[in-house]
């Protein structure tokens, strides 16, 4: 279905426009208002788009009107199918929550600018129907945070980190895109960059491209052995954009959107390797998170572990496994946002996220404690949360074909659960080591409650989510 006007482009451009507006706003209050309004508008618009997509039987696609692109032909640049619409909505929720629900910083303008820019890039990536735009947005995802994070003055120097992540993600991708276009230009002509088309045609030079893509995916998903940047970034980078990055799972998206299409039907070596990387990450992240001494770093390790689980599901190529992975994708994204917001709230109140320095926070912040506990159990898939549905599907998908893998995944989730409950006990319970000045404020409470409502509401009535995800799953099994 085509929209009569460039609705999707407008949605995608809104956050970027917002970022520009915020940058030039007069004060922090003004900046917050703009950020909240823009993020909210994007959220509503994407909900509308998702309804539109779902309304088309079998999960069709909505597209912007076609554009004349000169030599590249006439085709729409932006569109959503069920998968990208679901993911876009999840990301919009995450972005809205982080923009509105985060504690106030000294100056809000750089923070909100970064967040809106990151959201814009993520949406661009998701909505893009063009390989180059997708690749550009993908590569630049870390740039806003790296460019002017609010941590510039306060935090340690993370320049190298961002540079490394950018290069490790962008270079192989650029090479892959170059190779694709070079190898296929002859056979495809100007359509080589049209994502709707390239999946249907045979490719040449697939193995090298696949290798490069896999490298990119490994880096972005923070799979072993290219994982170390993620814990470092959650600990030292600005938390908001990092959470958006984690929740977007851009690596996985690149995998299903670009890499999958290069081996229609046949998993090839790629899934095997990725599965191995996934298992290793899941276990390694699980084990190491057992002894983490910093809450933010713990979130990083948890994300490494969970990304591992998700990629195993995607690579299982079983209907329940893939659906489980997508459910997990959305549920973990939402839950980890809640988790990060609570950790952030702890940091804003106590000035630290070092577990050893914290203790007994429940005395001063009971609601914050409940929020952390709720998101902790949600992010490791306890019954009642959407994560449980995802985990159940995932494991069914994997255990059927690879029983050993399934057991290892169970071990990894067990480890993650232990790590989070341990953190909950150490930080929020126990003798009071540090007192917070106040519990969650109304603004934070509403955001946190909204996220919890999404995670637990869909966890209790999963059919809605699972049906939509069922459609999204079909987009992967092209």
């Amino acid at each position, binding site marked *: 279905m085509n929209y009569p006007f460039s609705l999707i482009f407008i949605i995608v451009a809104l956050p970027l426009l917002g970022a520009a507006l915020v940058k030039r706003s007069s004060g922090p209050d003004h900046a917050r208002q703009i950020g909240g309004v823009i993020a909210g508008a994007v959220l509503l618009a994407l909900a509308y788009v998702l309804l539109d997509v779902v309304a088309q039987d079998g999960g069709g696609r909505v597209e912007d009107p076609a554009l004349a692109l000169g030599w590249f032909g006439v085709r729409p640049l932006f569109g959503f199918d069920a998968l990208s619409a679901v993911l876009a909505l999840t990301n919009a929720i995450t972005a809205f929550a982080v923009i509105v629900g985060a*504690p106030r910083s000294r*100056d809000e303008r750089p923070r909100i600018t970064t967040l809106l820019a990151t959201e814009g890039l993520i949406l661009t990536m998701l909505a893009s129907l063009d390989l180059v735009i997708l690749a550009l947005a993908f590569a630049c995802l870390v740039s806003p945070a790296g460019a002017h994070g609010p941590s510039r003055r306060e935090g340690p120097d993370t320049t190298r980190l961002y540079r490394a992540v950018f290069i490790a993600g962008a270079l192989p991708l650029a090479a892959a895109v170059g190779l694709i276009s070079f190898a296929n230009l002859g056979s495809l002509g100007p359509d080589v960059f049209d994502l709707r088309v390239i999946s249907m045609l045979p490719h040449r030079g697939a193995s090298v491209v696949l290798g490069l893509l896999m490298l990119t995916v490994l880096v972005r998903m923070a799979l072993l052995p290219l994982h170390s940047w993620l814990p470092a970034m959650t600990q030292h980078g600005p938390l908001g954009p990092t959470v958006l990055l984690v929740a977007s799972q851009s690596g996985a998206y690149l995998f299903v959107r670009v890499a999958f299409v290069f081996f229609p039907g046949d998993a090839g070596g790629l899934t095997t390797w990725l599965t191995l990387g996934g298992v290793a990450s899941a276990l390694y992240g699980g084990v190491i998170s057992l002894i983490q001494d910093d809450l933010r770093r713990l979130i990083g390790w948890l994300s490494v572990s969970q990304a591992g689980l998700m990629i195993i599901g995607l690579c299982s190529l079983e209907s329940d496994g893939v659906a489980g992975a997508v459910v997990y994708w959305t549920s973990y994204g939402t839950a980890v946002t809640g988790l990060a917001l609570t950790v952030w709230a702890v940091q*804003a*109140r106590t000035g*630290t996220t070092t577990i050893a320095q914290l203790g007994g926070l429940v005395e001063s912040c009971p609601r914050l404690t409940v929020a952390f506990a709720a998101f902790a159990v949600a992010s490791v898939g306890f019954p009642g949360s959407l994560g449980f549905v995802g985990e159940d599907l995932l494991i069914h998908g994997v255990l059927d074909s690879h029983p050993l893998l399934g057991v290892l995944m169970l071990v990894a989730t067990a480890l993650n659960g232990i790590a989070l409950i341990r953190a909950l006990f150490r930080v929020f319970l126990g003798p009071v080591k540090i*007192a917070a000045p*106040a519990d969650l404020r109304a603004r934070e409470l509403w955001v946190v409650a909204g996220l919890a409502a999404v995670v637990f509401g869909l966890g209790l009535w999963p059919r809605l989510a699972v049906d939509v995800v069922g459609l999204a799953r079909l987009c992967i099994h092209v």
Partner: protein
Amino acid sequence: MQSTSSRSLDTSFESVHLQTHAVRVSDPGPAPSIAPAQPPADARDRLHHALEHAAHLLPDQAPLEMFVHHNTLHALAHLPFHHALRIAHGVYDAQVYRSEQEFRSDLACGRIDPEELDRELDRYLHQRGLDPTQDMGGLCTRRALYAVALRVDLAPPTRAALRWRVREEQFDRRLAARADTNRMIEAGRDYLRELVTRATTAELTQRFLGPNGVPSRMGERYAIPLEIGALLRQLETDPEPLVAGSMWQTCRVLARECEVHASAEAPARTWTHRDELLNRTGRDIWEQTLPELLGWAAAYLEEGLAYWPMPGREAGFFGAVRELLLARGHVRPWIRRAVERLEQLREATATDAILTALAALGVAPEQYDQYLLELLAVTPGFAGMFSRLERHPHERATLAPPTSLTEFCAVRLVFEWAAVELAATEHGLGAIDTLVRTAATRRDAPHPDTHAAYRLFILAQVLGLAPAQLDTLTPSAANELLDALDTFDELDRCRVFLEAYELRYRTQILDGMRSNRPAKPGLRAARPSAQFVTCIDDREESFRRHIEEVDPSVETFGAAGSFGLAIAYRGLDAAGHIPLAPAGVRPRHEIFEHPLTQDAAIGERRRSRRRRWGAFLHQLFFGSRSAVRGALTSLAIGPLAWLPLGVRIMAPRASVRALAWVGARVLPKPRTRLTNDEACGPSPRGLASGYGFAEQVDRVHALLEGIGLRESVAPLVFLLAHGSTSVNNPHAAAYDCGACGGRRGGATGRLLVSFANDPAVRVAIAARGIQIPSDTWFVAGEHDTTADRIELFDLDLLPASHAGQLERARAVMEEARTRNGHERSRKFEHAALTSSAQVGLRHVEARASHFGETRPEYNHCTNAMCVVSRRSLTRGLFLDRRAFLVSYDPDSDRTGAVLDRLLAIAAPVGAGINLEYYFSRVDPERFGCGTKLPHNVCGYIGVLNGTSGDLRTGLSTQMTEIHEPMRLLVIVEATPQALLAAAAREPIVAELITKGWIRLVSVDPDTGEMQLFEAGAFVACDTHEPAPLATATTSGAYYAGRREPLPPARVLAALGGQS
């Protein structure tokens, strides 16, 4: 400011010098010497000294069944009250006052009077020799500053908290809403308007953005650029952010020019190996050693709870543990190390083991005191229990081996040694004998913003200062201000609060008594219809009041519940003898309860049936816990066990009645008597088996003389002892009669009555001047303070002539107990306030029988005073169950001998109860045993939290939660001279009075003049006009619908209509 709060405390009590006229107990001025006077020479002596020293500071609580209230800080009782509290705060790291927050909310709700608080503040300043009018930086006087410090929380926040408040709450851009905030803002606006027009950019930056401020950040803080025009516009539209911001930044600038130091110094403490290891490796060796140690300690001390008792206990704790550890191989590395060490110490005594371990650990003899205390204070419960049982071996079960703190310490040290050695090897820390030292806890340097600027800014807001005034403050003046605040630390503030808190209560009580005191207090009516003598217990206050309200022709008296006897008593159904005597008194007489000869058959049947029942219970108890018998029990009894459980919990009162009904059928109860062999033959246990005639006369005479019952003895005189009934309550002993050593009284009164009803005894007493009419009959009874039941003994002996009078008295008691139950139920939130008296009674009865009830009654909770007087002073006065009432007639006590006797019992017992409640309430975790809910009985001697850790001592929060922690207000109807003379003869009483552990008020028996003992002398405290006393027809009408503690009121019914 004295800051002596080290752990070196003198173990020897200072001898108390009581100067009859002006005892100047200097308030903690120069600290009394608390260092050991003569350091012992040799290591063994030093060790001995160190252990004694430690034993002194450890909790002194007996096993659960012998629970007796005592002053938790008995070790510091020789120091002035507030001073002792300050030391205890350092030594035990405990709360010693209620929190400031609680005091402030009391101030807000009127429980503390603001004027009285200021008066107490003045008194404090006077005592400390500080000038109240001293000017503080031109902003206020010292008195005003301290008054603010009392009312406003000025505790420095953490930096993160301050940052958070700045960002989220606009702490620096809003002024706290007060009456004069608008005036401040306007003054500030005018001042700033003028200033802004003349200022340079640099000045503006400093004024609005503070030190290190940069102009570019103006937007993010005030959303305007740093331009004069914009500033002026902002001042017109919304000046508050700019005014507040400029004041905050001024404070920050000032703060950077002040010397900031942390407001409270952390006390120095001994740095042990464990601290060093914890610091270096993050691992706590005590987490390994303590569970092991405490497990063995529990096994050694337990008195028959375990199915297999610990073998080899005869060898002493150290020897037994050594043999057991050596008997098997071990897995845990540190225990393997410990076993190696124990192998070396195979032949050593406990003392040798300690000395060896101390030498290996590198603890020098002069460090023994602190080091051992540091170690033992970590497990105060078990260490204290070893020490207590060592000093009071008779509290140990008959078959149990002896205990000693030395043995405990030996095991403790060998474990410590092994664990330290192993940890040091594992982490490559080298020699372990250089790790002990004394160190103050390091604190981060205080930050100027949080410690100085924050407080200055809050002060400026509270004092209503404008920016102009703040600008005139010089750094040195600010320094002075902050120093003055630091000097008045939290302990001092709480001290002033406590004094004001007590003063409010004291004023109410004394005003009430002044209004209530009859013109001729010695005048007694004609012969009363009956007389009741109850225990002095505060729980009997309401009971006595209700008896008098029901029948104004009755008289009541209060005497310590042992009625002057001290017996080893064995009841009909008891397992053995129990001492019924005040704490510290060893009984010398042994008394049995035995069936009457004509009921011997019933008695025998009861005995044999109970024996079989007991054997069954025994089998059930251990059997259900074992494997095979346990399976059989589960299969045979188990499937129905939910039924009795459900019934007992859903219908506690009915099920207890049903059980009693069945019990009475199955186990018939014979009529019984107490033995009393007048020949005083020795019993099998070597005690006298009865009181001789002369002793009987003495005891009866002493009782009657003590309560002032010299004439008009009524036809019926009841001696009501008391006890308490509760189920599922490990601390049950604490609810029984304190004067009977934490047991049910009953038997003492019953025995005394049998003396008093003996005509021969009466003749002998008449010779001593007390006439007991021949138609007088004494009846003994026991008041159950939980269910409010009264059981009377030996009624079969009552002369038929008294039957009618007994019926009448019984009706009075029945009505009184109903009303008493109702009055008690008002304190329980589960009881409806509107219910009738009968419902109230049923409520308290259900409490006594409910498994799930953690508060069978509130016990001594809310106790606050002790009145030693004729009843005329308190009769008809509603004292809200808060008073120990001791009957005393000053007119008949010319020599003061009776006063001596009464004070010697009432003051320490009352103060012990009161202070234990005080400390358990102010720090339930350190001084009390915390909440009851996870408690678990260990070895029948104490309770643990859950299944691990140390024995908990003190009172639970369920016992103390509604207590108002105050020192006992002792009001004695005697002249100051008589009181001082009596105190001079009783050193313990003197110490309590002069050191301020109780507050003493003398009421002149003739004039009614009231004087308070304060700072070493009696001062008049009745100079003001008393507030009018509330009046009500009955107690019930007065307290109706209210749960909170109530001020005294006059209850007309008890006065027989005379108003």
